[in-house]
């Protein structure tokens, strides 16, 4: 049985109030009988799991940040290769002059450039002496078309 004697007399209570307080303190709060049998191991296990999850989260965040940083760094280099370019689709066979249709990225505008030769190594020779841009081979599409990028003449082409 608990008495209310542990409660310090901080504020003024009447004798009646103190008695009521003491009587109420004798009542024992009800809980599920099993509440106190929760073993320390179980709680320690839960704490360990949470701690492991926290550590994992730190690693995950670190990895994501690292990946994002790498991606940003790579993206920052990409404009040097592909920015300000337009894809060009050429249909034809190597070493033969072919008309080249220039399209913008959305495919709206079309422009015909004559006198282009597709060399055997995939490079393109532009016959127009006033040309300010050159074509860079981007790869073969699924339908057999050859994709190019139109870049300024003074740009260097990097091999992928």
């Amino acid at each position, binding site marked *: 049985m608990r008495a209310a004697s542990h409660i310090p007399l901080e504020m003024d209570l009447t004798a009646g109030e103190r008695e009521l307080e003491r009587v109420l303190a*004798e009542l024992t709060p*009800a809980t599920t009988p099993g509440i106190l049998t929760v073993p320390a191991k179980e*709680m320690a296990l*839960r704490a360990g799991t949470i701690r492991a999850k926290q550590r994992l989260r730190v690693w995950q965040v670190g990895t994501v940040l690292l990946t994002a940083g790498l991606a940003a760094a790579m993206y920052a280099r990409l404009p040097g290769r592909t920015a300000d370019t337009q894809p060009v689709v050429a249909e034809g066979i190597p070493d033969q002059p072919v008309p080249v249709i220039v399209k913008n990225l959305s495919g709206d505008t079309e422009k015909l450039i004559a006198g282009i030769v597709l060399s055997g190594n995939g490079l393109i020779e532009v016959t127009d002496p006033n040309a300010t841009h050159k074509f860079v081979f981007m790869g073969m599409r699924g339908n057999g078309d050859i994709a190019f990028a139109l870049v300024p003449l003074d740009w260097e082409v990097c091999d992928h």
Partner: protein
Amino acid sequence: MGSEKPPSVQQAFCELAPNLVFYARQWVELETAEDCVQDVFVRLMLQRRWPRRLKPWLYKSVRNQALCALRSTARRRRRVASASVHSAKWFHWDEKALIDADAVQGAMSRLSEQTREVLVLRIWAELTFEEISGVIGVSETAAFRRFRSGLAQIKDAMQAQSAHQIVTTTNRRRIGNPG
């Protein structure tokens, strides 16, 4: 306990869990209250530093946890009413007790949430008014005023119930012996 670190979390749990559950039951059902208390002790294990004053820390954490659980149900008002009035018994039945536990539960369930909280913290959690003010975020004077008001309301309720019982018993006797 005070500011001293107890030997183990398990010991602190055994010592304080029942009253912490009782405190959490001001807002949530018994099962949820027990979950809240266990969660708080797990959080205690995760603490790098043991709280300077363990008991107020535990009560404040349980309070936050219980209120969080209550908000997550988005039915606060209804649940409070349900937890206060219709839930299972709040106290263990004790034939030696000087006061009727059911009557106390009934009287307490009619108290305002703030008043009841102060009573529980003071009487069963055995916190000082300074600690109570830290847990619930009011001044010591306000906490004391609520405590005193709560005691008065319980006293009135108990007296009214006693009077009602006397009247009921007398009426039954009259009905039983009309002559």
